[in-house]
């Protein structure tokens, strides 16, 4: 999710603009234009670069962070720094009168800004500590945003494959389970994709809640989730799957706007990895197991749920 600086951070954005305007106004009001031969172009490039980069950081912060203490400190700190840098830059064109208070204004905001930024970074560190604790279930092993499914926030199949490949070398038995939501396509048709995505997100939450810390949950594709259970016996794995199935069956998902409560039925399949298997072979095996069940259900056409 991205933030609009003019909506989410109205005050901060306005104060940054005000600071930039104030700097330009101060210089323009007090200074006198230098002659062309006195202008140092190299300085202008260097100092101009600083101003532009600081502005970019501020914009990046405003777009990507929700409002709060950390954002406030970081943005204000960088803003003060930018204020000083802008004054410095405009000095190259405009001769300033040698007054005490003006040089104070030019040099003081920068260190204060740095101090504020450091304070912001300290609070950011605290915040990250809390967030990491929150995310522990979802990213037990690494943080790589391209290995996480953007819809549900659990891992993608590619990541599961790489974990599976390392787990296959371990001496303990590895179990791989698949959970497929029944009739998800018709849910999507009936209520739209945004509700479908929300359902997937809630389901991933429920699956995570029912899994142990050592299990890795991933969204394989579409409405199929997979759970990797290291060092687990088949009975334990089946028990866990039963628990997940029961949890989903009893979870009344409220469809936005329709007032309906939807209960989810799932098809599950579990296999134990053999030493000789590759990750992709295992996943395929699991998948064909699921398909077989779906086919049998279609031919017998009896409602199991």
């Amino acid at each position, binding site marked *: 999710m991205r933030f609009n600086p003019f909506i989410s951070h109205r005050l901060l954005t306005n104060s940054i603009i005000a600071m930039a305007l104030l700097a330009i106004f101060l210089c323009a009001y007090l200074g006198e234009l230098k002659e062309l031969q006195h202008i140092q172009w190299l300085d202008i490039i260097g100092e101009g670069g600083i101003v532009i980069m600081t502005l970019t950081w501020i914009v990046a912060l405003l777009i990507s962070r929700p409002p709060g203490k950390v954002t406030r400190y970081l943005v204000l700190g960088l803003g003060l720094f930018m204020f000083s840098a802008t004054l410095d830059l405009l000095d190259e064109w405009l001769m300033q009168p040698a007054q005490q208070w003006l040089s104070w204004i030019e040099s003081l905001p920068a260190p204060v800004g740095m101090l504020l930024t450091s304070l912001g970074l300290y609070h950011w560190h605290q915040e990250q500590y809390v967030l990491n604790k929150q995310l522990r279930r979802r990213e037990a092993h690494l943080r790589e945003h391209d290995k996480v499914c*953007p*819809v549900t926030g659990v891992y993608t*199949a*590619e990541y599961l494959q790489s974990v599976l490949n390392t787990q296959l070398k371990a001496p303990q038995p590895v179990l791989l389970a698949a959970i497929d939501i029944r009739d998800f*396509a018709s849910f999507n*048709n009936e209520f*739209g*994709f*945004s509700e479908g*995505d929300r359902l997937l997100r809630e389901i991933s939450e429920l699956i995570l809640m029912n899994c142990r810390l050592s299990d890795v949950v991933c969204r*394989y*594709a*579409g409405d*199929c989730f997979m759970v990797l259970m290291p060092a687990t016996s088949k009975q334990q794995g089946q028990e866990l799957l039963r628990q997940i199935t029961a949890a989903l069956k009893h979870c009344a998902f409220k469809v936005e706007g329709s007032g309906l409560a939807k209960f989810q039925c799932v098809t599950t399949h579990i296999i134990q990895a053999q030493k000789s298997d590759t990750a*992709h072979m295992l*996943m*395929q095996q699991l*998948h*064909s197991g699921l*398909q077989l069940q*779906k*086919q049998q*259900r*279609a*031919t017998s*056409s009896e409602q199991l749920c």
Partner: protein
Amino acid sequence: MNSYVSLSDKYLTAQGLITAVVELAQSRGVALHKLLRGTGIFEQDLLSVEHCFSLEQQVKLLSQFKRLMNTPDSGFLLGSQLVNDSSSAAQSVLFSAKLGAALLQIQRARLQLCPLFFSQHYVSNQQFYIFLNAATGLDDDLHNYILEIYSAAFYSLLKRLSPHYPQCEFDFSFKRPRHIHQYEQHLGLKLRFEQPTTRWVISKTLLRQANPYASELRFMQARAQLAVKSHEKYTFIEAVWRYLHTYNEASLEQTAQYFAMSPATFKRKLKSHNMRFSSLVDEQNKHKAIYLLTLRAKCNEHVAERLAFYDIPNFRRAFKRWTGLTPSQLKV
């Protein structure tokens, strides 16, 4: 001479693919103005009943969609969404009495429903074969992406119209993709990659299966609506392909003459579709050779003669160039 549509002819309505693209992108939080950028489509065009779009615009929209969605399953989602299309072309397919009739109806309304690929259908050994060819030159990524969309749409249609869990084989000419698990989830496990042709294969018995949603009256109504609108039958490339299919050894000049153009204009026209005459001829011959060798189980001599090759080694060399395989390797 048959009438045909070119890439830049505006004849498509916003219903169907374009609507599905916009809806899906918006539900995933993609801004409309970003999606439409560079496509020549404006927001108000989507609401107008009369406004029509060209194939070129559709291709550009799809490429924008692919770029902005940036998830490996977007093509499959879009494809399965196409089954819910409410245009009369799609309705006539969905209310057909049997799957076979539905496929025939798709073939009739293909300029509306699936204009970017055209197909040849064959029945052999109790199987129904659908061979696919692109109706415009596309870069590899987009070509594969559109095939993903069409394959997902086809499989969703099969699932919708057949009460039992249907099986379909998918052969693709490209390498096994990185997001193979999306293919397995959305198209089933009968997938093959790096094949000489792109084709879908279903069991012949599926064609006769009754459609649970069949409605004769609605089918007739949708067809009547359709008949009012459509005049053209083929895309330009398909028209050329069909001509070459009938006149095996037609030269570029003869073909240009058939389409009432000078050879230079004809070449320019092909170029605007990113195609070359010689590659179309090659494709045609490759298709015929594969059809005769695999589905009709003919021997090399027969095929070489049918394709007017001087001798068999020549044919084998050409075949190897088209497919990377020798004729005998293909038969195995």
